[in-house]
């Protein structure tokens, strides 16, 4: 596995050097890629390991962002308070809502989460005493690590990505653990998994809670990056673009999530050079991926590799 180690080292070097060589707007996008990776990891766990389509991630993203905004701007608390409050509220909500709705499956569950996202989006708009409505909350301070202020995209980049790597490690742990085994068994045959005492409901709820935690964390990071949050950032459209991250990249692969996050942050930016038509092209790109690459970019990459090297063993871990 030395070649794999080499790849990782090379990737790390590029990662560390990147913000010093790219213009500010690209550094800014890379920060967003990190934030989206975190949010997308949660959805990837649900989609790839539980077969659950979560269309409510913008809700948890919004809870994290508003908690950070409210705690720092309105209450004058330190930044960490916003992260913690957002995480606690998101996880509690995910647990309370997850218990009943995760009994649903397939389309019904997907549309229930979509409805949940639409409800939250309407409430963010309506509860302007808390969220500032469309005017939003501005003046959110930049993060401050023991006196070192992360006020430029290149500085924030490192912080966001260290959080993202930590989340990736956590997700990786989960997939390789006893819980991961049970999740995969459940996805293949929930009937047989039940006969082996795998508790589907409890596991699905727990993963939903983890997904909400990642969403909230990403939201808090977003609030401190943008300095301003308003309802427009937490609509159902945002949930859809979060869902696209694992769909495009490949839900069971952690590098796939990063690829998906790069796709949804950079592609709209590149397409926007073509003018307003970019949103149409983005929609078409999604349709193209779903129709032509049903298991995402990473799945397609894997198939390509296998085709080029047919003698290699078909399943590597």
């Amino acid at each position: 596995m030395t070649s794999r180690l080499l790849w990782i080292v090379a990737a790390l070097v590029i990662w560390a050097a990147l913000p010093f060589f790219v213009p500010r707007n690209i550094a800014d996008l890379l920060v967003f890629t990190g934030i989206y990776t975190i949010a997308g990891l949660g959805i990837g766990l649900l989609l790839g390991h539980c077969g659950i389509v979560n269309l409510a991630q913008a809700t948890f993203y919004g809870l994290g962002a508003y908690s950070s905004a409210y705690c720092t701007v309105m209450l004058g608390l330190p930044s960490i308070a916003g992260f913690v409050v957002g995480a606690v509220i998101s996880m509690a909500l995910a647990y309370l809502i997850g218990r009943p709705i995760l009994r649903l499956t397939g389309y019904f569950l997907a549309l229930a989460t979509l409805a949940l996202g639409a409800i939250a989006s309407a409430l963010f708009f309506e509860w302007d005493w808390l969220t500032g409505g469309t005017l939003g909350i501005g003046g959110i301070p930049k993060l401050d690590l023991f006196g070192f202020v992360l006020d430029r995209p290149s500085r924030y980049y490192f912080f966001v990505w260290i959080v993202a790597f930590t989340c990736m490690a956590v997700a990786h742990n989960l997939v390789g653990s006893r819980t991961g085994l049970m999740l995969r068994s459940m996805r293949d045959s929930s009937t047989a998994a039940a006969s082996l005492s795998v508790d589907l409901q409890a596991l699905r709820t727990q993963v939903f809670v983890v997904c909400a935690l990642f969403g909230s964390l990403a939201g808090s990071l977003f609030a401190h990056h943008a300095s301003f949050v308003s309802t427009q950032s937490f609509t159902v459209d945002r949930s859809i673009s979060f869902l696209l991250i694992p769909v495009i990249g490949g839900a069971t692969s952690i590098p796939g999530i990063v690829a998906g996050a790069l796709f949804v942050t950079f592609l709209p930016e590149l397409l926007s050079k073509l003018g307003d038509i970019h949103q149409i092209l983005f929609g078409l790109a999604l349709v193209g991926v779903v129709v032509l690459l049903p298991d995402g970019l990473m799945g397609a990459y894997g198939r390509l590799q296998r085709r080029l090297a047919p003698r290699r063993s078909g399943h590597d871990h």
Partner: protein
Amino acid sequence: MTLSLVLQAVFAGVTNGIVYALVGMGLSAIFKGSRVINAMQGEFAVIGAMTTVLLLTKSGWPYPAAIAGGALAGALVGAFIEIAFVRYMAGKKASEDSFLLLTIGLALTLSASVLFFIGRDGHLLPPIGGEGVLIVLDAVIQFHALWLIAIGIGATLLLRAFFHRTTLGLSMMAASIDPDGAATTGINVARMRTFTFVLGGLLGALGGILVTPLIAVDYTLGLNLTLKGFAAAVLGGLTNPLGAAVGGVTLGLVESLAIIGISSSYKDVVAFTVLIVIMILMPQGILGRAGRRGG
């Protein structure tokens, strides 16, 4: 809470409910015929309404012709989507999730196309039956609302007759209930699926055209109508298009009566909460036996 306020709410509820019913019936017809939940069903409404607006204002068509043109546009887009995408993916035995993502992608594309080609502004159609109103116990009821209700009920009855009386309707039912059996009797199952998308597009477009004199149509309307239509379809039993009619009116009434006295923007919150609660509390019952599984 006065009587006229309640009456006004009931009327608004029935009016909205008929629109949800039309969108929901289309969604249900498509699900019945293809086992696909069409997440762009609301976009059919936007296509129908926008086409009618353009034919009326830009091309100067007479209003009834423009309405027919709008409905036809919905039907054509429905056919196109089935032939261009669904048929291919069904051939590859794509999963439920893939179809959902496909239709979400199509919804994004269509909504972005409206934004690009037509712009951000909302557009209204003139009310059918003129600007007149009817006053019943201080409640103001637009003539258009009465027309909408009449047309909605008419469309529901026609749909019923279509499924039970015509050869095409019966063939579509047969193909959806037992594709293999239908194929052995010479029914072209793939073509029947195309027809269900035509029907879905037609019904969705009609719903959009009828609501546009009341609510300005813009590129954001589709998603909301998709969710409301889905709620209507689930309430009425997903595989029963006529049940969706009852479901739509029920949903319209519940949301408009629930918000008497509070901000009307809670309307969606109420409707979507009803949707979630119904799905949880009646996981099998409301759908009957066949509806649950994708296969």
